[in-house]
């Protein structure tokens, strides 16, 4: 009797366990298999094979070298023989005629550019020559308006030549010749003119000279001190535009700050209306909750577009876009927090005859404040990141500058600079918010 009674549930248990195991084993093989199949589908759907052909490694090389180096253009206008030496080919980076870098010499209409390691480029009226060690001389001979190329055959793949254009790319630099002009680019490490552009009186001075100028040398501009002049020249640097960038970063943080904190202020009272223990009237609760759901469902992207039409480009638009989206998330989160509070404190206050506002202030807020603040700060750091993207859409902040710099596909060192600044900004805000969260939560925990 007892035997049968005991064994029946045992086999039952055994069977369920075995079945459970079998199911799990199946699952542990099936799940990776499904993922693998999905990856195979994606491999074809995203055309990864085609991507391998489309990939522009030359672009990647330009990008990588621009990130840590700058180039100086030495350009000869073939129609009038004028030669210009300019950093990044920009006006503000043009060397004065009598003050060329030491690797360029111009004498009697002959320009000699020493690219280092024995690479020498010469421009003159007869054409241009590029001496490349272990290869020979790329000789371009002008005949009237046309030119011919004379170089050791066969041409290696780093030289491309047609009737109208010759391109030579070596480790030392790049050389390009067309009817209209001859160009040589020399790459050097660093971000040049980061402090002062060439048209500034402080350009190309050593650190010691600058200290001297700032402290005891006579004034360059009699109207202001050298140090103030220097700061101003740095701040308004025309190539790197430090003032513009500082404003852009400020705008980005402004968007995140206003958007996040104003959203928190607005959604806290709304959350009381959506919490079942504070709003017994179900239709109000239902309506407010659907508003939160709707706002979260309509993506930040859509709000951003709608708001840009009404408010125009700028940080206010971005701030409002973040604000509206976050009202949805905060409203939901806060109302859930409110539903989970300890009712005892509220009851205690009610027994002393406190009205509902007083109950909320002294019974509820102290309980939820640490959670709410830490959530808001956590969202703030996320929104600093989002503000970069939203800025790119609404047209404000560092996001806009980044997309503009990338879309010109010219000044990659600026892109590198903006990227560095964005990452530093995000990391700084992360640490600030983490520090504040630790402070606030600890402070509040000790306080009540």
């Amino acid at each position, binding site marked *: 009797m007892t035997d049968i009674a005991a064994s029946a549930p045992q086999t039952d248990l055994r069977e369920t366990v075995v079945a459970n195991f079998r199911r799990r084993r199946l699952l542990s093989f099936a799940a990776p298999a499904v993922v693998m199949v999905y990856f195979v589908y994606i491999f074809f759907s995203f055309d990864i094979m085609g991507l391998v052909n489309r990939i522009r490694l030359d672009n990647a090389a330009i990008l990588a070298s621009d990130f840590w180096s700058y180039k100086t253009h030495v350009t000869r206008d073939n129609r009038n023989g004028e030669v210009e030496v300019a950093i990044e080919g920009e006006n503000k980076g043009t060397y004065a005629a009598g003050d060329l870098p030491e690797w360029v010499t111009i004498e009697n209409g002959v320009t000699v550019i020493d690219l280092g390691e024995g690479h020498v480029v010469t421009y003159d009226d007869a054409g241009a020559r590029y001496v490349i060690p272990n290869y020979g001389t790329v000789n371009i001979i002008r005949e009237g308006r046309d030119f011919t190329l004379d170089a050791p055959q066969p041409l290696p793949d780093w030289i491309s030549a047609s009737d109208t254009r010759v391109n030579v790319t070596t480790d030392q630099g790049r050389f390009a010749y067309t009817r209209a002009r001859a160009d040589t680019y020399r790459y050097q490490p660093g971000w040049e003119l980061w402090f002062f552009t060439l048209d500034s009186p402080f350009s190309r001075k050593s650190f010691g000279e600058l200290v001297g100028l700032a402290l005891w040398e006579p004034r360059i501009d009699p109207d202001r001190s050298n140090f103030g002049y220097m700061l101003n020249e740095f701040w308004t640097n025309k190539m790197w535009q430090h003032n513009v960038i500082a404003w852009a970063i400020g705008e980005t943080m402004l968007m995140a*700050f206003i958007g996040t904190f104003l959203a928190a202020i607005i959604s806290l009272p709304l959350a009381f209306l959506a919490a079942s223990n504070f709003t017994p009237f179900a239709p109000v609760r239902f309506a407010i909750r659907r508003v939160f759901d709707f706002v979260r469902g309509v*993506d930040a992207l859509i709000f951003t577009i709608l708001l840009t039409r*009404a*408010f125009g480009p700028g940080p*206010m638009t971005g701030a409002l876009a973040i604000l509206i989206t976050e009202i949805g998330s905060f409203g939901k989160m806060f109302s859930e927090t409110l539903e989970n509070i300890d009712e005892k404190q509220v009851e205690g206050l009610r027994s002393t005859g406190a009205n509902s506002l007083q109950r909320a202030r002294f019974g509820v807020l102290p309980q939820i404040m640490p959670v709410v603040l830490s959530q808001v700060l956590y969202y703030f750091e996320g929104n600093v990141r989002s503000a970069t993207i939203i800025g790119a859409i609404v047209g404000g902040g560092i996001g806009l500058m980044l997309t503009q710099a990338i879309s010109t596909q010219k000044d990659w060192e600026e892109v590198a600079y903006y*990227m560095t600044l964005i990452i530093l900004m995000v990391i700084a805000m992360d640490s600030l918010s983490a520090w504040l969260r630790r402070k606030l939560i600890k402070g509040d925990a000790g306080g009540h």
Partner: protein
Amino acid sequence: MADASLSAPSASLATTRTRYLEEVRRKRMYSGVLLAIFTLLMVMAFGVAEARNAGGFWEGLSLLGQFPSEVISEAWERRANIPAYFLSFVPSLIETLNIAAVSTLLGALLAVVFALLSTRGLARWPALAGVFRRITDTFRAVPEIVIALILIYILGGGPVPAMIAIAIHTAGALGKLFAEVAENADLKPVEGLTSVGASWGQKMWLGIIPQVAPDWLGYTLLRFEINVRASAILGFVGEGGIGHDLKIALQWGSGRYDEVVSIFLLLFITIVAIDQLSSHYRNRLVKGH
């Protein structure tokens, strides 16, 4: 004797009370000062944002309804086209969802590696745990748009740049959350496995993963919701997916607002559906079936 023992507590009670009140007053003062600073900052920030915006806040507020009503009225006139547009935008919607799904999967896989390598007590190379944590932080800090735009330049258009960009950010964000879960995992199974000579991979696979899998899956689903939105936005700024279609339709301006409305609706329905599904499954994971 009795006198002394009675008066001493009452005296200490009085001092305790004054101290308590003083403490309360000080705390209130701190809170008040903090609140004042915060209010001042907010007002200033609002002023600056207002000054640097192209349109003002109050004029904008009155214009707020204008664009939507223009769009909706035009779309309403041509409402017959909308179902056809729905169908025509499904492929790009699927692309957007695929970008989100693949990047969530890849990011989560990478995050598992980061989390296990950077958690104290579990790390394969404990000396390098800090290094892996820094790498996770950096991955999290890089905004998706930065990577996406650069990869578009190198890889050309298509969904892959957005996918890689979101995957990198996902790896960082999930890596941190996964590590927090793994830190609280029970180490007894690992000790047991160590005693029978299991390798590091076996210890993680058999001792840690079964404990943390529900939480990790929950976070991954939540991330998927976020990534669907990110993928739509990246399409708008960069290339690929339904975001790109939306940009093109909007650039056209009036005349194609029926398309705009179709995309808005499609996006809204998808996001709500995915949120609902994911929260359903997350609830199941938390309750353990």
